[in-house]
């Protein structure tokens, strides 16, 4: 029983990382209806920037917000330079562009920083506490807590502020928004900037656990996709809950289902995606989309 609880707890822990990256994916999807394949790489690059700052002696609590600002600016810049020229192009062209971006960012990170895994500082103590026979790590709890804070911030921004409303309008009804005087293009840039900043948070939280290296986010992003899909791709709350569920399920399946074993954990994520989508095509918290003729 104790082992089972331990597996659940470590599942929740890794699920927190999935949740935080899934939030960034959901933000981009909300902003432009497309999944950004470069999200994980952008998050990784932002984390490397934070690493460079901290390495140069900047305090963690200054480097963190500084990185968020840089990531925000970077996201906006990428949208202006790389995405905007293909805004009117078919969706697939955009997808290819994000794939090219992912390759580019990954290669650059490898070139600049090399491929050895590095330790990254965490604001939460490394200590694990024994709670009723189960070991819980402050750091893992910290990841979940921070994801919760980010979630709240996103919710407040999108639902309770004018600019959030404008962003949502620009994303879902671009023509009508233009008619009302909204600069749709800059709203998209804003969306990218925000998603990039959220991704940076995810990377900075994940790096102490995953160890910083250019390929750090590559496996995580698939689980993050699973989480986003499970929760409903347009729901930030769904992303967080989806992340935790995916983490726990993958862990338990790997530990207790003999057929699955440790090497097919990712296959479990795939099975989750397909099963959920077949049963509930919009995910747990997603809004059903109505197709108009």
């Amino acid at each position, binding site marked *: 029983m104790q082992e089972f609880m331990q597996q659940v707890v470590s599942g929740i822990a890794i699920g927190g990382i999935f949740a935080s990256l899934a939030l960034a994916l959901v933000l981009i999807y909300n902003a432009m209806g497309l999944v950004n394949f470069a999200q994980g790489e952008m998050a990784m690059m932002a984390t490397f920037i934070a690493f460079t700052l901290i390495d140069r002696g900047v305090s963690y609590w200054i480097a963190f917000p500084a990185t968020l600002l840089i990531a925000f600016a970077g996201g906006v810049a990428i949208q202006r330079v790389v995405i905007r020229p293909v805004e009117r192009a*078919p969706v697939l062209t955009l997808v290819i562009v994000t794939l090219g971006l992912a*390759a*580019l960012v990954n290669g650059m990170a490898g070139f600049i920083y090399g491929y050895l895994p590095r330790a990254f500082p965490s604001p939460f103590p490394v200590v694990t506490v024994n709670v009723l026979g189960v070991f819980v790590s402050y750091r893992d709890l910290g990841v979940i807590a921070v994801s919760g804070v980010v979630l709240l911030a996103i919710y407040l921004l999108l639902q309770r502020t004018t600019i959030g409303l404008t962003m949502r309008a620009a994303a879902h009804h671009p023509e009508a928004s233009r008619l009302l005087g909204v600069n749709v293009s800059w709203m998209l840039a804003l969306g990218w900037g925000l998603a990039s900043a959220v991704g940076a948070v995810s990377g900075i939280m994940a790096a102490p656990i995953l160890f910083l290296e250019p390929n750090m986010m590559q496996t995580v992003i698939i689980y993050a996709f699973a989480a986003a899909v499970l929760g409903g791709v347009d729901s930030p709350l769904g992303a967080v809950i989806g992340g935790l569920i995916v983490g726990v399920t993958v862990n338990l399946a790997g530990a207790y289902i003999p057929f699955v074993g440790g090497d*097919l954990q990712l*296959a479990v994520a795939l099975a989750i995606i397909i099963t959920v989508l077949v049963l509930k095509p919009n995910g747990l918290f997603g809004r059903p989309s109505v197709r108009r003729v």
Partner: protein
Amino acid sequence: MLQRIRNAPTRYGLVVVVIILLLGLPTVISSFQAGEWAQALILAIAIMGLNILVGYSGQLSLGHGAFMALGAYTSAILAHRYKVDYLLTIPIAGLLTGIAGFLFGVPALRLSALYLALATFALAVVTPSLIKRPVGLTNGVQGIILLPPDPPQLAKDAFTIVTGRAMTSDQWTYYVTLAFAFVLFWLAWNLVRHRAGRAMRAIRDGEVAAAASGVNIAGYKTLAFGISALYAGIAGSLYGMSTGFVNPDTFPFSLSIQLLVGAVIGGLASIPGPLIGGIFAYFLPIYSNQWVPTQTWIPSQIASAVEKAGPAVTYGALLIVIMIFAPNGIVGLITGSYARLRRRLRGAVDRESGQAPPESQTA
């Protein structure tokens, strides 16, 4: 007869020229390069399959590498364990993969575009681990080594008569691939021109309207999946023949991405698109990095930095640039420029006569 040739669209002439060029290619390039072109053609076949799914029927798949793996392993297992002649295994592998694709298409019906993309994406990522599992069948992580195919005597003699050199297994692979490519491209062309193709395009452009018109949505969508998987299966089988080795690591997720990239860069919903896409998808990742240091107009610090950075950087940058300048793929770029040119020429003529030039038609 001569009248028909004269009246045929210039496009057909171009096709004939391309066919002749492809046939003659191994006679003028080295054996190694023939092997490379064989791999480009293999990708072109898989991309043609993907194009039928994505370009013509509007369903997105990021997991066609998985179908290639299925085809490759089917052939490898039949050839290695059951000693079936390799050439015979290719259509069998294609058929098996086609059925698998058809079956996959059934639950895929419930998934809207984005979700289908994610599901197939996850499939592509999981494929290597899935292959490693049934060790008895697939040889697990060690993979299956295939003997290089020995060209039959007839082919060897024919090649020596034409070129005076002995035919290598790479060149033989090239011709086998070319033969399959001819047949499959011709079949695709027919599919697209006739009822099934029209039905698929109707579904792609407006599913509700197509359903209202009586098109069997489910049937055609799953058919598209099945056909595209068949193409990928044959490509995978040829891929095993060309590399001489099948292994879980030869079908990473990046292969599926390569196929999609090739399809979009070549030009979706076109027949020549996949051929161009295959050439790009194969040569770009390998040579973009090696090509940069040889260009003297690039300053040496930048060139050496780019070379050290690895192929991913140049490849990623080139993808972005190509998509910005050719958002409808290379075929889109060519037909678009050609149409603009014609309009401009015709416009010049018609300004005198006072008639507006006709709108260019898209396929």
